[in-house]
């Protein structure tokens, strides 16, 4: 019989590190990854030889990227592997590191995400099954279609979607790792160049380069290595699902989010209303509305009013995308899901500075990826 994470021994996030997300530069990718890993090791106050296994979430670097980067920490011979799961690559790497520690295979595992922009075609375009739109429906158009339908169904306005971008850019302005660190007004967002349907440029995430690293450890390792328990954050649940045929076929990411989040919350033994912090896949502004409703943080059609009333601000009922989210912190693909865990950990430790959600005890990280896949983790303060 299958078991939830809670059936195994506890696994904790013990160290976090980032390389800032930024526009593509000439910086070689090992510099990005090593910066994040060294920061995570320093954060946990452990040395590289303590790490027993590596899962590297990357979608764009190409074959055999991990040891070419991590050999510069000094070869220890540990298993290393690349994990590709589209936008959820970093989330999936973190899940695998967590499962490896929880099941006792390792006491310390590293999950990392590193990517640089590169033009790669999706395997889905090579299945031999063609489409009517012949490449004309890219992700922003997919979400523009969903946004238009949401406006029609719930009498939502352009301002309702734009407010997501205003909030998340405001959060990103206080995050030195964010690709966009400039606050934007409602007028800035609405008057920005139109991309598709209701979406303007500032309602679409920037895809740049960066890295995120998360160290996962067991109680045994925490004791043996003398890691500060007060700064450890427990992984309460890990859920991952893929798309099936839904009655409501167009917004498959929302249906997938509904199921995966419900499983993650149930496995963690908590309810959506208990969450203090959420990092979700806001690649496009409208997604934050869809997923908050799919997660039952808001009732159907009510997320825009709650957003307007400040419920999702830092200091509100639940801080949503306090890092700036994909919209402001950025979406370098491989790192993004691991970077969400970094932010949740910072929040639950009470170390998020100007972005701190008061008394944050429970956080949720959510990514969807082309395919479609969905990964949700619930983390709790120890």
């Amino acid at each position, binding site marked *: 019989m299958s078991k939830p994470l809670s059936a195994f021994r506890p696994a904790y996030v013990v160290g976090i590190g980032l390389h800032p997300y930024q526009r593509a530069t000439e910086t070689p990718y090992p510099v990005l990854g090593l910066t994040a890993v060294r920061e995570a090791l320093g954060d946990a106050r452990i040395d590289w030889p303590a790490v027993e296994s590596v899962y590297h979430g990357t979608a764009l670097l190409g074959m055999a990227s991990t040891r070419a980067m991590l050999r510069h920490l000094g070869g220890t011979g540990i298993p290393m592997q690349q994990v590709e799961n589209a936008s959820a690559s970093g989330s999936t790497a973190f899940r695998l590191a967590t499962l490896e520690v929880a099941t006792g295979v390792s006491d310390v595992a590293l999950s990392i995400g590193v990517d640089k922009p590169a033009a790669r075609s999706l395997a889905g375009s090579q299945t031999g099954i063609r489409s009517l739109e012949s490449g004309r429906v890219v992700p922003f158009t997919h979400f523009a279609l969903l946004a*238009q339908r949401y406006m029609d169904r719930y009498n939502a306005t352009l301002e309702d979607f734009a407010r997501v971008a205003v909030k998340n850019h405001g959060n990103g302005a206080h995050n030195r790792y964010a690709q966009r660190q400039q606050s934007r007004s409602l007028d800035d967002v609405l008057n920005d160049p139109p991309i598709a349907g209701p979406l303007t440029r500032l309602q679409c995430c920037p895809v740049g380069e960066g890295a995120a690293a998360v160290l996962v450890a067991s109680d045994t390792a925490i004791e043996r290595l003398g890691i500060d328990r007060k700064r450890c954050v427990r992984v309460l649940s890990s859920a991952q699902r893929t798309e099936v045929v839904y009655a409501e076929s167009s917004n498959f990411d929302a249906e997938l989010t509904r199921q995966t989040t419900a499983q993650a919350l149930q496995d963690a033994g908590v309810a959506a209303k208990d969450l203090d912090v959420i990092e979700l896949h806001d690649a496009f502004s409208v997604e934050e509305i869809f997923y908050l409703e799919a997660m039952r943080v808001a009732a159907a059609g009510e997320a825009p009013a709650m957003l307007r009333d400040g419920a999702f601000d830092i200091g509100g009922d639940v801080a949503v995308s306090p890092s700036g989210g994909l919209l402001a912190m950025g979406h370098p693909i491989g790192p993004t899901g691991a970077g969400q865990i970094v932010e949740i950990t910072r929040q639950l430790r009470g170390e998020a500075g100007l972005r701190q959600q008061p008394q944050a005890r429970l956080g949720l990280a959510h990514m969807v990826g082309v395919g479609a896949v969905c990964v949700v983790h619930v983390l709790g303060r120890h």
Partner: protein
Amino acid sequence: MSEALAHPDLYVSSGGDAVRLVGMRCGRCGHVAFPRQHFGCEKCGADDDELEGRELTASGRLTSFATVHMHQAKTIAAPFVIGEIELDDGPTIRITMVESSDEGMRIGARVRGALVAVPSSGDTPVRRELRFAVGAP
């Protein structure tokens, strides 16, 4: 009217301007899908032996639309309008609309397929491509 169809694996001419979509039906679970494929039913997993081709009527109801203002591919000129359409025969499709503006377009409107001549480009001759337009068949 004799120009070749741009995607004969996706739609067929049924005389003059009339057009039908090349879809499929699963003989095991009844799932109707577009386009036709031979890999297996994504709902129940039945293999090709149980999948049958089924032509679908090129008419339906507009469930959403979006004007695309920019596109990365140099071969695709923006702006254009994409429609999301629930076909009368079941599946939902997304396709370029004949209309060049979404002004006055509304969700719920009846829409129908139309073959539109697309100009030649490079080595590709003039072809007829399926688009959808607002209006009853």
